[in-house]
């Protein structure tokens, strides 16, 4: 599209995005592209704002969680991560970052979403609510760390995992969205980082920023306590 065409489509109908076209004869892709790009700009700005707010609101809790995780790692603790759907992939990326970081020290982390044999066996034989809790009861020891992600804060299998983690005596770090959901009031999650948004996508983006900051602070503390 020419710059001139782009300008003319931007000038036209700035509120057009409010009224999705139902006209199958619509043919001006330039107008749609301008609308899409404008929507993307607003979402990018919102994502940045949600992240900034979450990092600010959770600063003290990240500080406390990083201190507890640092102590755990120094005592030989391991980090278990878990979540569902997109949060499962985010959990996997948290484990990758701790276990195989681009810089800093490698730390032991296991993603409970990785083992398809165990997950499907438990889901098939018992139910999906136990797929993380049963793994924690099998693998985790007092002093390890459980980190779970749920945008709603209400995923049953994540909540069951935290209940198990609390029983076993793990350091518990939870990430939730909206108002924190059941995770925030369960009493099983010591460090509950809540992203105050009602968009699953913006929540996940801010959760990624929070766990990234958590990783950075854990590395910094380990360097201070145990310089190499």
């Amino acid at each position: 599209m020419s710059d001139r065409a782009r300008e003319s489509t931007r000038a036209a109908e700035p509120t057009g995005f409010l009224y999705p076209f139902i006209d199958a004869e619509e043919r001006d892709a330039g107008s749609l592209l301008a609308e899409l790009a404008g929507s993307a700009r607003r979402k990018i700005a919102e994502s940045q704002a949600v992240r900034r707010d979450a990092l600010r609101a959770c600063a003290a809790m990240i500080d406390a969680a990083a201190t507890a995780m640092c102590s755990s790692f120094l005592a030989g603790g391991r980090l278990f991560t878990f979540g569902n759907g997109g949060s499962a992939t985010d959990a996997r990326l948290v484990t990758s970052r701790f276990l195989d970081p681009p810089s800093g020290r490698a730390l032991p982390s296991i993603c409970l979403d990785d083992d398809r044999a165990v997950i499907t066996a438990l889901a098939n034989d018992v139910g999906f609510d136990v797929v993380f809790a049963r793994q924690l009861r099998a693998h985790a020891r007092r002093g390890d760390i459980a980190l779970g992600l749920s945008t709603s804060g209400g995923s049953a299998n994540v909540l069951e995992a935290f209940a198990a983690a609390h029983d076993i005596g793990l350091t518990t770090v939870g990430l939730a969205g909206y108002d924190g959901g059941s995770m925030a009031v369960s009493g099983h999650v010591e460090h509950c980082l809540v992203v105050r948004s009602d968009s699953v996508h913006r929540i996940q983006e801010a959760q990624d920023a929070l766990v990234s900051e958590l990783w950075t602070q854990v590395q910094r503390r380990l360097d201070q306590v145990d310089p190499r």
Partner: protein
Amino acid sequence: MTFAASNGTDVVAGDLADAVAAASLTLARAFAAGATLWCVAPEWPAHAEHVAVEFVHPVIVGTRAFPAIPVGAADPVAGVRVLARPGDVVIVIGTTRATGIRPLLRRAGAWGLTSIWLGTGPRPEAAWADHLIWLQGPDAHGPGPGVPGEAVDFVLAYHLLWELTQVVFEHPGLLTAPVDEPAGEVCITCSDEGRLAEVEAVTDDAHADVLAGGRRESIDVRLVDPVEPGDLVLVHAGVAIAVVDGAEP
């Protein structure tokens, strides 16, 4: 990403927005025509899985589900070659250092695929993919920046791709490309460069079966050094005129 601290509308955010918008229109049109989206992320397979689940199981009730599948093959070239069909789309997520990305993207056109590269690092030439969605800023590991403006964010970019692709489906008249749009940037019969094709089989001393633009054809290979399956060649008027390095643009 290098965002301005006070707003999301600086130059880099604008580039990202424009790139995602264009890729979303292409992707929506491909889905409307029956395409599958193949998701490849050699460095962080979880990103490929995350893209796929966005499309297959949308978080917003009432939005459409689309076929999107992570490619788990150790060699993404070998995997996508047998998985994808002409008209499909492949999205590759990764840095310029990732092995496997360039050989895959180099072949996508020959296989009849549309390609999207969501990447970071030194910006490659535009010819590497039909759509480059490029994140500026220091290379980072995995998702999300710790501090806004300090690192890349693949997750935001593919969330936007999903959100905008859904928006395109609210515009049914635009889900098919206009017929008067040029089919390609160069004339395929008189272009100096010729068309890129991948050798499937050498059939005799003089001929090979190749895939070009997703179509199989027999070409004359007497003008070039001996080729073997998987090699890339430039084809002009039914004749291979050069063997191409699959890792170069």
